[in-house]
């Protein structure tokens, strides 16, 4: 990542200290410098420039969507992204799954004393770039500094506000027997990319995270009249957990064809070696959607028009209302439960 020319700073850091100090969260002059020289300078937008306790803007028509998420990924930088871009994409995607067009984000930073200022600047630059590319603004924020050893470099919380148009209603309660289940692309890249750096797994070195904003592809589906019944981004717990949550909330039986689920060979290979099941591995730029059977092919075609969903595919359907269960038709044509995971995925022993 250090070789990425995009990440090199254009000019020397205005903040004089090379590392974050406790006083940077103390409310005094150092904190003001940090906010002005790093956050406001990078996130630059009129609402933030008000430098008020919060951001204000006039209301518009529609329904508001509001969400929050915290980011504690380790390492901070990984192939295909970093904690900054993740913190922007993740919250945008939570809004997108409500059918909302994201507008504004907040950014709360918990910094560990001793963090290199250059590292913070890289993270903030990455957030700014991700927000700009996604068409959202970071309009308010907060900074706290904790003692060395009490954090892990940087933790970020982002909250987001978006607007849902009046005609859109998306949620598990709208799922119907017969609905087609679509997945927006290949699974498992994010989790394996992060693990490959954390565990120094050289064989998985060319797998990049799928971290990406998904609101534009969702908006395109809505604008083209696709009646989306339910959406879920496939973050922690992966596809298997998302399907189980929806089956449980909607009280439906889901039938999934294992052969249809796209997984890259490199990811499959890394998972085989590590004893992981890619259906449970986290993604940060993938979602599952439930749409009426009659619109399924058109929805897939629309999704494939976007780079983030180029490998969109139909993986199953809602089989009935008899029970809350996800049944996987295996590659051999047999059937088994696709269950929620108990705790974390753990590596196998022999």
């Amino acid at each position: 990542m250090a070789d990425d020319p995009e990440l090199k700073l254009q000019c020397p850091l205005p903040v004089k200290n090379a590392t974050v100090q406790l006083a940077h969260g103390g409310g005094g002059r150092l904190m003001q410098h940090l906010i002005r020289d790093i956050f406001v300078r990078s996130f630059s937008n009129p609402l933030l420039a008000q430098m008020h306790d919060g951001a204000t803007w006039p209301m518009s028509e529609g329904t508001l969507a509001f969400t929050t998420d915290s980011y504690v990924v380790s390492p901070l930088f990984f192939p295909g992204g970093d904690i900054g871009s993740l913190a922007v994409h993740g919250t945008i995607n939570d809004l997108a799954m409500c059918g909302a067009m994201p507008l504004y984000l907040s950014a709360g930073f918990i910094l560990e004393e001793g963090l290199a200022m250059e590292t913070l600047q890289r993270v903030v630059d990455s957030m700014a770039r991700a927000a700009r590319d996604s068409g959202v603004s970071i309009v308010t924020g907060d900074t706290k500094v904790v003692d060395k050893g009490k954090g892990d470099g940087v933790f970020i919380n982002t909250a987001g506000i978006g607007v849902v148009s009046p005609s859109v209603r998306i949620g598990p309660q709208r799922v119907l027997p017969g609905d087609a289940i679509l997945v927006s692309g290949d699974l498992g890249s994010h989790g394996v990319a992060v693990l490959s750096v954390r565990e120094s797994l050289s064989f998985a070195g060319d797998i990049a995270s799928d971290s990406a904003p998904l609101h534009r592809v969702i908006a395109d589906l809505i604008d083209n009249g696709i009646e989306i019944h339910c959406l879920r981004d496939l973050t922690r717990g992966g596809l298997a957990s998302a399907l189980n949550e929806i089956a449980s909330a909607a009280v439906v039986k889901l039938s999934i064809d294992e052969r249809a689920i796209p997984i890259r060979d490199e990811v499959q290979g890394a998972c085989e070696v590590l004893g992981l099941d890619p259906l449970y591995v986290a993604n940060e730029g993938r979602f599952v959607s439930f749409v009426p059977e009659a619109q399924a092919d058109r929805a897939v075609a629309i999704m494939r028009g976007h780079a983030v969903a180029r490998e969109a595919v139909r993986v199953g359907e809602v089989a009935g209302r008899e029970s809350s269960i996800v049944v996987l038709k295996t590659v051999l044509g047999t059937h088994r439960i696709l269950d929620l995971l108990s705790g974390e995925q753990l590596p196998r022993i022999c």
Partner: protein
Amino acid sequence: MKYVDEFRDRGHAETLAHAIKSIVTRPWTIMEVCGGQTHSIVRFGLDELLPGIVTLVHGPGCPVCVTPVMLIDQAIALAAIPRVILCTFGDMLRVPGSQGDLFGVKATGGDVRIVYSPLDALALARANPDREVVCFAVGFETTSPAYAMAAIQARRLGLTNFSLLAAQVLVPPAIEAILSAPGCRVQGFLAAGHVCTVMGYEEYEDLARRYHVPLVVTGFEPIDVLEGIAMLVSQLEEGRAVVENQYTRSVRREGNVAGQAAVREVFEPTLRAWRGIGDIPQSGLRLTAAYADFDAAVRFHDALAQCGSVGGEDPDCQSGLVLQGLIKPPDCQAFGTRCTPERPLGAPMVSSEGACAAYYRYRRDGRPGAIN
């Protein structure tokens, strides 16, 4: 994906299932020894493809499951010592000891690290000369060469802060214990392909002869398991009882000779208690006197002496019967009610190789095809 897809091919699986159906004339009970094979069977629903009169029972081949409570208590006691870093495979963390698990001691400040290889533990010892690094050596013959190599390298490097808590177990004595138990109904075995990759299969030929039982060294992918079953059913139908090798892409008769030599240099067989089963003579490995410097049981003798051998197994847990193939997981009263992966009573509900966990995760009510 190459080397995976061809062993999960539906057409090939159906051909093998058809071949088994066409030769079988009587009921047969077959035990797959290894937990990896159990998971493959339940995950891919292989028993759905078999004729109803071929019964698969699941064996004791999950090292996490058979590690006795006393050794888990010892690992927990070591992890609680402030200067100790305890290294273990991830599956061990949630296995209940008599009063808690390794996750518990980790949460209260014990330094417990998950490693992928014993050599990772060795690297930790080199990087932390002021700490004592103990590697919890759990596993079958498959992992023993790596533990042996860690000890050999530790000696070569002159490390004085690295030791092994030996907990390894051996497959052939366990098969013999099952065969000689009263009420044994197993008529043939799928032997564990990865154990035999290291050990070869000469020692199984002796078992086949003495107990007149066929064994087929078998791999772990669905096609491997179905092919192993087909070979075993052929032998049973023809009245033969020899060792055959299905897993030829990995296993040779003599095994990995260099690996075996390393194991012989560092370890020797010893009596070992198997969780849920009991003592089996010569079924475990301990460090030889020459490697006593790297034996955690010696180095931490005083601390471990405090560790009572309470051995408190929950009375509702029938994992011993499951591990011997005498019942299937859903036959246990506690299965899925008092005992779940979140609140396990016994190790087979915890481990990724455990039979109870496999049934709970993939099948829930235990019947093949019931969820279709």
